[in-house]
């Protein structure tokens, strides 16, 4: 009886877990994210709640650490372990604030997920289309999905009409560092300023 009980509990737990897990197929993975984001944007009453839900989603589906390393470029080699830890912490806060702020402006985005192109074992590009509205033209959005762990794909970049957000971010960070005589620490102050504004 006890054994049966545990099996049932385990089965229910597995089902619950399954319902929160995303697909390992990159195209389906993006489709699920799009559906979930749409549901959040339509059904959340307050901006704070939208921000909270979207942040939770991002933490599960975006490779924030990978993007953090990418955007710092080779400057990351100038940081010691403590500084790197601080940078990753700041970047995560910066990323979530920036990411949710961009998305909460949309109330009911209509995105068609069109196709997926495997670039190599580590990357798949998923193509989608944000449909036009009366005010905004149609926008092509490509999602760079990191598939090194095939069971847990993660988003690494959004390429909007051919313009990479990660690359833009990287060049922006490089500019901040260069205008401060190559001092990476100054980037930390700028990030703190953004997080606290």
């Amino acid at each position: 009886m006890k054994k049966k009980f545990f099996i049932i509990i385990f089965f229910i737990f597995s089902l619950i877990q399954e319902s929160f897990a995303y697909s390992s197929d990159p195209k389906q993975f993006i489709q699920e994210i799009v559906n979930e984001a749409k549901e959040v944007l339509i059904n959340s009453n307050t901006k704070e709640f939208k921000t909270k839900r979207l942040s939770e989603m991002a933490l599960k589906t975006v490779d924030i650490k990978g993007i953090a390393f990418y955007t710092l470029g080779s400057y990351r080699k100038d940081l010691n372990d403590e500084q790197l830890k601080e940078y990753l912490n700041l970047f995560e806060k910066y990323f979530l604030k920036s990411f949710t702020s961009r998305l909460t402006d949309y109330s009911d985005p209509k995105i068609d997920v069109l196709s997926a192109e495997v670039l190599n074992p580590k990357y798949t590009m998923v193509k989608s289309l944000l449909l036009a509205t009366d005010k905004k033209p149609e926008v092509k959005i490509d999602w760079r999905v990191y598939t090194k762990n095939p069971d847990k794909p993660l988003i690494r970049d959004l390429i909007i009409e051919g313009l990479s957000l990660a690359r833009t971010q990287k060049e922006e960070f490089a500019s901040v560092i260069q205008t401060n005589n190559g001092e990476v620490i100054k980037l930390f102050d700028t990030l703190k300023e953004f997080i606290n504004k």
Partner: protein
Amino acid sequence: MIKKILYILSIWLLLMFPANAGSTGSEDLSKSGSSTKECFEGVSRAMFKLNHGLDKVIFEPIAKGYRALPAPIRKGTGNAVDNLRSLLTISNNILQGDLGRAGNTAARFGINTTAGILGVFDPATKMGFEDQGKEDFGQTLGAWGTESGCYFVLPILGPTTARDAIGLIGNTFLDPVYQITHNTEIKGGIGNSNYSEHNYYYYRGTGAVDFRAKNIESWDSLENNSIDLYASLKSLYLQNRKQKIANSTSTTETQDDSDWEEIDTN
């Protein structure tokens, strides 16, 4: 004319010597993130501030007013401007040796100007002549293999590179709309007095307002989420030009993956 030649020569010099005062000439490329150097960053940042201020006071309010017009009017206006703009595209398609695209653009212009009532409607797309993108002389120079040269910001016109600045001048020679509206003097009975230079600037101004109105939210989002707006705009401008020169909509053809390769997080 001499003034124009001197202007072209000075920009050509910038193109030949890309790293200049105020640039990060000694910076390691892998660190700078962008391989395009600044011509004179201090001046460009000042120009950017000026343009940003002008946008806030003049262009953004006009774009918001334009946005309040009914959608069919905005759509028709955008179509008509694009239709006129396609004449410059045809010249550049030919210069790039891309006769297929030139034929497509010419067919679109013919159909939309007649059946589409001066370009207000776009029946050409429904007939299978899809819009294949705009071309300008900067893109043509890029297609011929000219490097971008250094980056700078022009007052009102915004971001550019040495190559694209030469392209702006080249456009005036290649654009039939510019030529028709700027050669209105009648000599020996030949000429055209129906248009004036003003018509050209109305047309370009309308195009700019239409573009700005389509990008109100995108710009606001960029503005709110940038820690260095000047650098963001530079990056977006250069990525966009690279893609346009490659005539590619494929991300994989225009994005360099090498930077991602060394980053493993799982």
